[in-house]
C-alpha cells in the first residue's frame, strides 16, 4: 500500500469532504424544518390531513434512497412540462437533485421519529396544560415539543448518521463527495485500498464526532434526569 498517493491528492478529498458536509447539513436542516409541522399535523390533524403525510412517510421509508435519487435525477427529464418550466433549471443539476432527494428522505424519517416522540408525551402533562388553561398551540409549543425533542434525540442522532452514510450515494450521480473523491483516485491509480480506506477513515471520524456532540447535547438536555450525586454540589454560602 502506498499512501503517498493520498497525500498528493488530498485536495480532492478536501473538496469531497466539503461537499459531503454541505449536502448532509443542508438536507438535515431543511428536512427537520419540514418534519416538525408534518409530525404535529400527523398527530393532531384531521384524518384528511394525516392521509397524505402518512403516504409520504410510507413511500420514502419503504423505498431505497438510491431509487428516490434516480427518480428525481433521471426521472424528471421524462416530463416535457418540467423541461419547459423554470424547474428544469434546478432539476438538470445533479447537486440539486441529490439535495432534493436527501431532504425529502430525511424529512420522512424525522417525521416518523418526532411523531413517535410527540405521541409518547405523558397524559398527565397534557392534562395539566389543559387545566392551566393553555390553548392547543401554546401547549404544543411549551409542553409537548420540548419534551418530545428530548425523547427524539437518541433516534435522531441515528438519523444524522444514517444521512451521512446515505450521502455517499451522491457519488453515483457524478457528485464529488468523499466517496466520489475515492472513486476518482481509485480509477486514476487503480489503488482501491488506499482510496476507499481513506474515505472510510474520514466517514468514521465524522461519525464519531457526531456521536460525541450528541452525547454532550444529551447530557445537557437530560440534566434533570441525572442522579443527584453526579451534579456539582452547590456550595452553601458561609
Amino acid at each position, binding site marked *: 500500500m502506498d499512501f503517498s498517493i493520498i497525500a498528493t491528492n488530498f485536495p480532492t478529498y478536501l473538496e469531497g469532504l466539503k461537499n459531503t458536509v454541505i449536502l448532509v447539513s443542508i438536507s438535515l436542516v431543511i428536512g427537520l424544518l419540514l418534519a416538525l409541522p408534518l409530525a404535529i399535523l400527523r398527530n393532531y390533524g384531521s384524518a384528511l390531513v394525516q392521509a397524505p403525510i402518512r403516504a409520504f412517510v*410510507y*413511500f420514502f421509508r*419503504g*423505498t*431505497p*434512497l*438510491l*431509487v*428516490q435519487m*434516480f*427518480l428525481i435525477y*433521471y*426521472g*424528471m*427529464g*421524462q*416530463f416535457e412540462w418540467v423541461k419547459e418550466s423554470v424547474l428544469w433549471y434546478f432539476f438538470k443539476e445533479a447537486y440539486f437533485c441529490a439535495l432534493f432527494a436527501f431532504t425529502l428522505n430525511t424529512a420522512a424519517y424525522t417525521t416518523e421519529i418526532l411523531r413517535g416522540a410527540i405521541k409518547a408525551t405523558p397524559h398527565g402533562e397534557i392534562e395539566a396544560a389543559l387545566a392551566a388553561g393553555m390553548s392547543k398551540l401554546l401547549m404544543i409549543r411549551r409542553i409537548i415539543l420540548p419534551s418530545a425533542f428530548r425523547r427524539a434525540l437518541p433516534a435522531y442522532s441515528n438519523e444524522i*448518521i444514517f444521512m*451521512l*452514510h*446515505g*450521502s*455517499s*450515494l451522491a*457519488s*453515483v450521480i457524478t457528485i464529488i463527495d468523499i*466517496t466520489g473523491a*475515492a*472513486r476518482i483516485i*481509485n480509477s486514476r491509480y*487503480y489503488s*482501491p*485500498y488506499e482510496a*476507499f*480506506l481513506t*474515505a*472510510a477513515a474520514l*466517514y*468514521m471520524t465524522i*461519525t*464519531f464526532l457526531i456521536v460525541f456532540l450528541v452525547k454532550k447535547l444529551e447530557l445537557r438536555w437530560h440534566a434533570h434526569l441525572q442522579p443527584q450525586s453526579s451534579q456539582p454540589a452547590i456550595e452553601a454560602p458561609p
Partner: protein
Amino acid sequence: MMFSLHGYGPAIFEGTILTLEVSLTSLVLAMFFGICGALCKLSGTGPLRLIAQVYTTIIRGIPDLVLMLLIFFGGQVFINQMAPLLGYDQYIDINPFIAGISTIGFIFGAYMTETFRGAILAVNQGQLEAGTAYGMSRAMVFRRITLPQMVRHALPGFGNNWLVLVKTTALVSIIGLDDMVRKAGLAAGATRKPFTFYLVVAINYLLITTISVYILKQLERRYSVGVREV
C-alpha cells in the same frame, strides 16, 4: 400512456427475483455473522469480546457503499495478487454477486449482533441454570432453552434489520449486478422513460416491505403464544 412497460416487464421481473435472491442470501450470512458476533460479545474471553466490539463499531462508522466498493475493487486486487503465489496466472474477475452478498451480509451481521445479544440476555437466567442442573451440555442449553425463547425477543429488531437490508440491496446495481434497479436503468435508457421504470421499482420495494411486515407480524404472534399480554 405512462404505465406501458414497452415489453420490459419480464426483465424487471427477473431483476426483482435477483433482488430477492441477494436479500435472502445476505440475510443468511448476516444471521451467521450476527450469532457469532453475539456469542463473542457475551463470551468470557476478552479478545473475542474485543474483536466483536471492533467489528460492530467499525461497521456503524462506514457507509455501506464505501465498504462495498472497497470489497469489490479491493477484493479484485487482493485475489489477483494472491493467485500467482498459488501458481494461478490468469486474471480473475471478482463476481459482483459474491462481493454484494458478502458486503451486505457483513454489514448487517453487525446490526444482527446487537439484536441477538439483547435477545440472548433477555432469556430468563434461572431457566439456563435449570438446564445445567438437568445435566445438559452448554450447546444443548443453547439449542433447547436459549434459542427458542430468544426468537421472540429478537424478532422486532430482526424485522427492522431485514427491511433496511432489502433496501440496501439496491446498491448492488452500482457494482454491476442485474438487480431490479439496474434492469430499470437499462429499460429507462432504451425507452427514455426513467420515471416510469424507477417508479415501478419503487412500488416493487414497497410490495416486498409490506408483505415482509405482514409475515413478521404473524411470526411475532406465533412466537409470543405463551406470553401474557399486559
